[in-house]
């Protein structure tokens, strides 16, 4: 038998008393479950108790064995017994550690046995997808079944290796403790830097990558350090401490620095790192856009937003607003953008309003104004038409600031509805009047209570409810004059109806038509007409209504495609973006130019859609009929600015 096997068997023999002790410990959950069975089921309490007992006891045993399996012999001068035999240091370390690990795992199983036998928990071990111990954790996170014992086993191994290292350090009391003390402070700080950076970046994938990398590094580092200490330090505790510390800190330092480098690389992104552009929102005027896309080589859910100047290529990563460029709002004159940033915190601290001055040629820097926002999610702000005021919600309070002085002009609570946390839709009617479409918990579009229409007089600081849109209104669009709006209702038979309403009172002026079970989408044109699209099973339909709600034209598009109505360009044509649902075929996505006068649908070759939130109220910011150029991704995902008058696409370089 090899030296490893001999040491392994010897260590098992030395620790054989652990198993009867574990069996006795495994009986403890029985009376506990009897006591707790009044609140929980007996079996459930017993199974959970047995599992908790085995887990906690096992990991504590791992710590104890880790601290003693090699180090006790070493500090008490008994290591020479092994080193005066033809036995390699590696065989000694591996044999001892493997045996101790086996003892820990065996003790856990033995401890688990009585409770699960009586409680029936063992029945759940036979291939059930979500065993009893995953109930509270969520079966998705811990399935498949083998991950639980694997994680528990690896944790036990890590605890052992950790306890061994700590034990060597403190038993040796050598000057190398100074290095240990320094590294115990420095490395976690460096590791925290990387973690904080990816957490601030709000990418779960990167966070998980770092966590797994750190866990693996710790396991490898502590195991390797213990092995090297035994092999190179042998029976000399102080030398062992030196080799252990150098090995451990070298491995962990390399790992942490690599993680820091990775975190820096992964989060210091530029538009070139975008895998694809998911959405672009141009400013109402000027060359600036905000674009959102998923990042290359950074896993799923790694997104970034950029404010970018399409003429100069200057860009700025937009704060912490990684999810959806809609959180960035441009002023109508295109000279300012505001966003809500959420600083990293373990507590649910509020976000902070930041603004970007877009007037200069240089990279815009975030300006902070010590204005906290209750939640960055769904944050919406709106500028007055002359860009001199900004209004936004925080909690249920409407706040209006004068610009550029950032002087608070008014603040008004909207009501006591405690559930109101979501975005209400805001729009300035003029510099002194703000209209609010206030819905339920998820904004106006999914409110079952209907939508209240309110007007706030900024100068007089008065809030008045001017109207109400009853039933569920899924889509509300307001025309450029702020006098009319259309709403899409879902009726009791689940079909949708489009209605033209008074924008101030919500009174239905005209029920336009029934739309079946597919929800339509649409937009006002500059002259008040309404262009509505709806996806069908075999074809999509485009309908043009007059400003009074009379059907003027119907066009069909082959295929079951989502048709998004975009801005109205100079000359009266309207941009349409077409998406094929549930397919990633590039050709299924295209941009067309719709001519309301003729019904012609001109394909703009080489351009791909990217403005998925056009259906929102942002549309009311566009200068209808005045758009001359727009930014699209091309076939290769590169951004181009398309001039509608010349038909020329100019690449945007970053």
């Amino acid at each position, binding site marked *: 038998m090899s*030296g490893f096997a001999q040491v392994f068997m010897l260590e098992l023999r030395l620790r054989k008393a652990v198993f009867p002790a574990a069996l006795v410990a495994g009986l403890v959950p029985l009376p506990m479950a009897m006591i707790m069975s009044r609140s929980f089921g007996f079996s459930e309490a017993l199974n959970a108790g047995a599992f908790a007992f085995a887990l906690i006891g096992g990991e504590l045993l791992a710590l104890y064995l880790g601290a003693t399996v090699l180090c006790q012999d070493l500090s008490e001068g008994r290591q*020479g017994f092994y080193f005066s035999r033809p036995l390699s240091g590696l065989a000694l370390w591996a044999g001892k550690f493997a045996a101790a690990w086996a003892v820990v795992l065996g003790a856990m199983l033995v401890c688990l046995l009585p409770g699960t036998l009586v409680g029936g928990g063992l029945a759940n071990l036979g291939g059930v997808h979500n065993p009893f111990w995953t109930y509270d954790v969520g079966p998705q996170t811990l399935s498949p079944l083998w991950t639980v014992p694997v994680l528990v086993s690896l944790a036990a191994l890590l605890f052992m290796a950790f306890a061994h290292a700590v034990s060597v350090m403190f038993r040796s009391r050598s000057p190398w403790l100074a290095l240990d003390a320094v590294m115990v402070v420095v490395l976690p700080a460096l590791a925290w830097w990387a973690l904080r950076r990816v957490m601030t970046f709000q990418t779960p994938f990167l966070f998980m990558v770092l966590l797994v990398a750190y866990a693996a590094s710790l396991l490898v580092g502590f195991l390797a350090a213990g092995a090297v200490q035994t092999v190179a330090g042998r029976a*000399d505790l102080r030398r062992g401490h030196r080799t252990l510390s150098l090995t451990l800190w070298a491995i962990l330092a390399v790992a942490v620095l690599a993680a820091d480098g990775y975190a820096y690389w992964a989060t210091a992104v530029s538009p070139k790192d975008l895998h694809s552009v998911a959405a672009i929102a141009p400013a109402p005027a000027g060359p600036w856009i905000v674009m959102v896309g998923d990042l290359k080589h950074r896993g799923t859910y790694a997104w970034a937003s950029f404010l970018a100047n399409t003429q100069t290529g200057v860009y700025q990563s937009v704060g912490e607003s990684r999810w959806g460029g809609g959180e960035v709002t441009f002023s109508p004159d295109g000279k300012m953008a505001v966003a809500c940033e959420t600083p990293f915190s373990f507590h649910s601290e509020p976000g902070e309003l930041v603004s970007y001055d877009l007037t200069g040629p240089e990279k815009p820097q975030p300006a902070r104004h010590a204005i906290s926002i209750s939640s960055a999610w769904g944050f919406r702000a709106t500028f007055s038409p002359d860009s001199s005021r900004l209004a936004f919600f925080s909690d249920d309070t409407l706040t209006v600031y004068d610009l550029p002085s950032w002087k608070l002009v008014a603040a008004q609570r909207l009501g006591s509805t405690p559930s109101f946390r979501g975005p209400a839709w805001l729009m300035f009617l003029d510099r002194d009047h703000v209209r609010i479409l206030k819905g339920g918990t998820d904004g106006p579009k999914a409110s079952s209570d209907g939508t209240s229409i309110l007007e706030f007089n900024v100068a007089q600081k008065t809030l008045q409810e001017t109207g109400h849109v009853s039933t569920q209104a899924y889509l509300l669009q307001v025309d450029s004059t702020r006098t009319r709006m259309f709403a899409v209702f879902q009726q009791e038979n689940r079909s949708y109806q489009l209605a033209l309403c008074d924008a101030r009172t919500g009174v239905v002026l005209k029920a336009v038509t029934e739309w079946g079970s597919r929800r339509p989408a649409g937009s006002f044109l500059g002259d008040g007409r309404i262009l509505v699209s709806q996806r069908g099973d075999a074809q999509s339909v485009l309908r043009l209504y007059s400003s009074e709600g009379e059907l003027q034209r119907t066009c069909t598009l082959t295929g079951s495609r989502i048709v998004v109505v975009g801005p109205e360009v100079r000359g009266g044509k309207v941009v349409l973006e077409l998406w094929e649902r549930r397919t990633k075929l590039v050709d299924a996505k295209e941009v067309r130019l719709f001519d309301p006068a003729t019904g012609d649908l001109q394909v703009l070759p080489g351009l791909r859609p990217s403005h998925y939130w056009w259906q929102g109220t942002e549309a009311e910011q566009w200068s209808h009929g005045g758009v001359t150029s727009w930014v699209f991704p091309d076939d290769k995902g590169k951004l181009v600015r398309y001039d509608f008058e010349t038909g020329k696409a100019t690449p945007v370089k970053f």
Partner: protein
Amino acid sequence: MNADKNGAVAAFTGLTVRYGKTIAVDGVSLAVQKGEVHALLGRNGSGKTSMIRCLLGQMKACGGSASLFDLDAWNGRVAAMRRLGVVPESPDMPPALTAAEIVTFCSRLYPSWDGKGVTARLERFGVPTKVPFGRLSRGQKNQLALALALAPLPDLLVLDDPTLGLDAVARKEFFEELVGDLADRGTTVFITTHDLQGIEGIASRVGILKAGHLLLDEEMEALKSRFRAVRWTGPALVPSDLASLAALSPLRVRRDTWGAEVVVSAFEESAFARLVHDLSPAQADASPLSLEELFIALCGEEGGTP
């Protein structure tokens, strides 16, 4: 049995061991030849155990080297240990294991194992095999250690103060067993000990360490022949008398009312006769020193350099 070019089965070359700023062993060179019983003597803290630990590959020397069977003791430890038996200064076996379990464990690590010999020795020593090692007496622990050291039929036996803490009977039994094995197999032995009386009868070569330095390393016979205690009665020694003693290399001079005693390290009969003739003492004699007396003369408070 393999040996290096000079026939040494174990050797130290300029070995240096430091503990922090303290130098425990300072450039010691020493060789253990095949078949000899080499005793390394020294006071506590003189560096003996450090040398043994380096030889066994348990400690890496700060300078110089130790070798076993022509293998570097650090790098070739595992191979060398197959041919080596060790009795440590303090028996270091797992306290929870019985002698039988320890024997079983060790027997599977060596290419050859004299199982019957171990059993016979343990019976002879009266070491219980079913009692945990931690509950054995000090003597029984040492006897078990010796039995284990001899079991693999080693080419070299390394004993680090094996009789430390043993009573007179246990010491006697230990050395008798050792002598028995020497007689049977002619095993090379490298031993450090404070039991000078016990080792005197079996050591063929002696090395003496003092404060990390090797004072001497030579054959026991040669050592005993050149070291003598010269005593005379008569008139007190005067400085000119001491000059006459120089030919005998005096190490230590002790004056008394009856005369003087001088330990010399280069005794020669002719030189002694001339000295007697020149000084005309009332009575003079030169007696051999025991190993203990010799050790005290060299390593005691007034000890000198041979």
